[in-house]
């Protein structure tokens, strides 16, 4: 039984008020500045579209090396003449390693 959109709980990231934390004796800005993550934490202070995220999540598929290999094997099963061809010649998009 597959997951339904309404069943999913979305965890929304928490924006961080570094000034307030520093005032109360918890200075973390230097750590995240060294990590170059200021823009990331700035981005967190924005809207999250729960319905859209759920809609995306139930339809998402992982396309990794294994999935890419299976796709190629499937193509060879359908058309054995594909056996000697490269991935680009077979047609699917080139696998971009992440």
């Amino acid at each position, binding site marked *: 039984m597959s997951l339904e959109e309404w069943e999913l*709980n979305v965890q929304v990231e928490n924006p961080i008020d570094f000034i307030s934390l520093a005032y109360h004796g918890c200075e973390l800005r230097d750590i995240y500045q060294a990590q170059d993550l200021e823009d990331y934490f700035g981005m967190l202070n924005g809207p999250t579209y729960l319905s859209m995220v759920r809609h995306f999540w139930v339809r998402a598929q*992982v396309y990794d090396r294994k999935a890419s290999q299976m796709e190629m094997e499937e193509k060879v099963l359908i058309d054995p003449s594909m056996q000697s061809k490269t991935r680009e010649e077979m047609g699917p998009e080139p696998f971009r390693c992440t």
Partner: protein
Amino acid sequence: MGIPIYILEASITWVIRRAAEGKFVNGLDNNKTSPWNDIVNKTMFNSTKKGKYIELSMKIKMLLKIQNENLLPKGGGGDQPSLDHSVLTLLSDQAESKCAKYIFKHMIKTLKESQTIKRTWIPYGRLISEILHQGGILKALKEVNYFIDAQLGTVTGKIINDSTLKHMKLIKKEDHIVLSIDMKESTVISNLMDDFPPICKHDPLEVRVMYMMDHFERTGQTIKISDIPETMYGGALPIANSRKCKKRAMT
């Protein structure tokens, strides 16, 4: 039929506006024999043995909280840090870590868990929303002028600030001071409506007509009837619940 969206590690790097370089340690397991245990214990607990959460310093507790909520969301309690989480805390204090890769791997792992063991929990709600927004989905929805924030379930995250320190009992109640410059949720702006008139279709017709005429006299620009939203937009967005259940609800 729909709009295809591809999320690569590079997409995350781009959205978080950070260089892709950094240190990445793969294959960490939360077991007793990991070579990382000694280093993690030394950094977090200042000891050769694994300590307890209560023994952590205020700074480490907050770093862990931020990681559990934002960098490698756990979805549950943060008082039992896994090795993955400990290592990122450790890296935060030393070499620059490859955050986009950690985030990407964690997202993939959670997606696979959703598909295999039916986990009902989605991490990175805000990050995925931003990817969808930057991918042009919001622009497409805005063009059809059909969706409003309530339909999209627009919320914002709860801010980690002095109140969090108080709730975590890291500062005393009497030491808690609310500053005038504290970050407010009301500063959040929806991407769906960046230029909206301060009227809606629920306003009386005379009010709408008067406003449109006044606007035209002042700016020379016409407001179309279709540009007026169904309901009034403004103020703070609702705040998302912090507690997330990973299992299906009993029916």
